[in-house]
C-alpha cells in the first residue's frame, strides 16, 4: 500500500510541477536559509551594537557625546534610505575585492548585513528609549557600572523590542536574499528568476514562492514565540 501511494505522489508531482528539479529546489532552499541565517546573525550583533551606541551617546545618557551620536545617526540614516537593489550595485567593487566574485551566497552577505543592520539598529534604539529612566537610575544608585547597566538592565529590559525587531528584520532579509539572488547570489530568488521566469516555467516560480512564504511564516512564528516568552511586563 505504501508503495502504491508513493507512486501516486511521484506521478502527481510530476504531473503538476513538470519542470521542477527537486534536488535543485532543495539546494536553493538551503542557500536561502544559509544566507538568511548568517545575515540575521550578523545584523543582530551589529544592529544591537549600533543601537546601544546611539542610545548611550544621546544627550544626558551615560556616554553622552554629541559628535559620535550625530555621526552614527547620520550613517544609519544614509544606509537606511538607500534602496537595497542600489546598495547591492554600489557594493559590487567591494564584494569583488573581498570575495573575488559577486556570485555565490557568501558574496551576498555584506550587502544583506549593511542593508539590514541600520534598519535593525533603529528598532533597537526605539526599544531602549522605552526603558523607564527610573530603572536605570535605580541601577546607578546601587553603584552599577555602565557595563553592568548594559548587560543587566538595558538589554533584558528591552528584550521584547530586541526580539520582535530581529523577527521583522529576518523576514525582510528573506526578501533581500531573493533580490540578491537575481544578481547571482543563488537561493530561491535566483532559481525563481533564472529557471522560473526567464525559461518560462511558472511551476518553478510557484514552488519557490511557496517555500519562501513557508520560511517567512516559520521565522515569524519563532520570533513571536520568543518575544512572548521574554515579555514579563
Amino acid at each position, binding site marked *: 500500500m505504501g508503495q502504491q501511494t508513493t507512486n501516486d505522489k511521484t506521478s502527481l508531482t510530476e504531473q503538476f510541477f513538470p519542470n521542477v528539479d527537486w534536488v535543485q529546489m532543495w539546494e536553493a532552499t538551503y542557500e536561502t536559509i544559509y544566507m538568511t541565517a548568517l545575515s540575521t546573525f550578523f545584523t543582530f550583533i551589529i544592529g544591537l551594537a549600533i543601537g546601544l551606541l546611539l542610545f548611550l551617546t544621546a544627550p544626558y545618557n551615560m556616554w553622552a557625546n554629541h559628535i559620535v551620536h550625530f555621526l552614527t545617526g547620520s550613517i544609519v540614516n544614509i544606509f537606511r534610505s538607500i534602496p537595497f537593489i542600489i546598495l547591492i550595485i554600489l557594493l559590487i567593487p567591494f564584494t569583488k575585492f573581498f570575495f573575488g566574485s559577486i556570485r555565490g551566497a557568501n558574496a551576498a552577505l555584506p550587502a544583506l548585513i549593511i542593508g539590514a543592520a541600520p534598519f535593525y539598529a533603529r528598532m533597537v534604539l526605539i526599544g531602549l528609549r522605552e526603558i523607564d529612566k527610573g530603572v536605570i537610575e*535605580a541601577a546607578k544608585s546601587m553603584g552599577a557600572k555602565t557595563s553592568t547597566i548594559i548587560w543587566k538592565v538595558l538589554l*533584558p529590559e528591552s528584550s521584547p523590542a530586541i526580539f520582535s525587531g530581529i523577527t521583522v528584520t529576518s523576514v525582510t532579509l528573506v526578501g533581500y536574499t531573493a533580490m540578491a539572488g537575481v544578481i547571482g547570489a543563488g537561493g530561491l530568488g535566483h532559481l525563481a528568476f533564472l529557471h522560473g521566469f526567464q525559461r518560462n516555467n511558472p511551476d518553478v516560480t510557484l514552488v519557490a514562492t511557496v517555500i519562501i512564504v513557508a520560511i517567512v511564516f516559520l521565522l515569524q512564528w519563532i520570533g513571536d514565540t520568543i518575544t512572548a516568552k521574554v515579555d514579563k511586563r
Partner: protein
Amino acid sequence: MISIKELRKEFTVNDKKIVAVDNLTLDIEKGEIFGVIGYSGAGKSTFIRLLNGLEQPTSGEVFVNDKKFSHMKGESLRIARQKVSMIFQHFNLLWSRTVEENIEFPLEIAGVPKKERKQRVHHLIELVGLKGREKSYPSQLSGGQKQRVGIARALANEPDVLLGDEATSALDPETTDAILDLLVDINERLGITIVLITHEMHVIQKICHRVAVMEDGKIVETGKVLDVFQNPQETITKRFVSQLTGVEDTLPTLETIFQHYPNGSLIQLTFVGQTTEEPVLTELIRNFQVTASVVHGNMNQTKDGPYGTLIVHIDGETKQIHDALQYLQSIDVKAEVLNNGSTNNE
C-alpha cells in the same frame, strides 16, 4: 551621620539659572528617621539625589559616615553608593526579573558570591513579608508589594542610610501605613538612618523623629516633629500642619459657626503629648460656669505621642471664660481664641 554643608545646586535651562538647592546646611543623626517636606518644585528630589551622588553639587559638601560624598567619582562613588541605598516613588523594579532576582541585583553589583546571595535574598524576603512571592514578576504584584521588593533590594547590601523619594506617594492610605510600619521596623531592628522626602504631612507625623520644611531650595524650619507641629513658625509650616489637623478645611465654615454662636468664644485647643489623655473638657465644665461644645476635632499619633486640635465653643460669663482659658494654659494646652475671620493668641 549625614552632614550637609552649604550645599547648592543650580541648573541651567534655556540660559536661565534655576537654583534647586540653595545653601543648605543640615545634620542628620545616626539611626534617626528624618523627614523633608515641601511642595512640588521645592528641590526635594534634587536634594536627596545629592546625598548619593546621583547629582553633583554646584558648591558645598555632603558627608555620609565621615566620607565626603560630593565630588566623589568613578569606582569610589560606586562602592560608596552601596551603603547609601534608595527607594523610589514608582519602585523602579526590573520587570524582566522575578522578585528574588530583583533583590539579588544589588548583590550581583557588589560581587557577592552566588551562595551567599541566595541566603541573603531569602532572609530579606522574609524581612519584608513577601514569602511565597519569590518567583513572581513585578507585573504580578500590587503597589505595596512592589515597594516591599524595593525596600528589600535597598537593604540587600546592608546600607547605613536609606533614602526614600516619595516612597509612599503612589500608594493608597492603608498600604502607605503598612509600608511606613515596615520602615519603622527596619529602622528599629537594623538601626539604619532613614531620610524620607514627602509632600504628605501624614508620613512625617507617623514615623519621623525630626522634620525639615523645604521651600525654594532652602530649609525654612527644622526640629523635632512634635515641636514643629506644636509651634510652627513659618507660614508654609502652618499650612502643612493644618493639612493634618484639617483646621484649614473648616475655616471657610467658621463664618457660619460664628453666626450660629453669636455669644461666647470659639477656642482652638492644641494638645500635645500626655495632656490628650486627660479629660480636659470635663474638668473645664466641672470647674467653671461655662458650657462647652465641640465644633471640630482631630487627633493624630506621632512617634513621640499624640497630637491634636479641638475647636470648642465656650459660653458663659466673661470672667468665667477668662478663668477657663487661664486654666487651659496652666495645663500646657495651647489655646487660641478664634475671632471672626482671624485668629488671635490669648
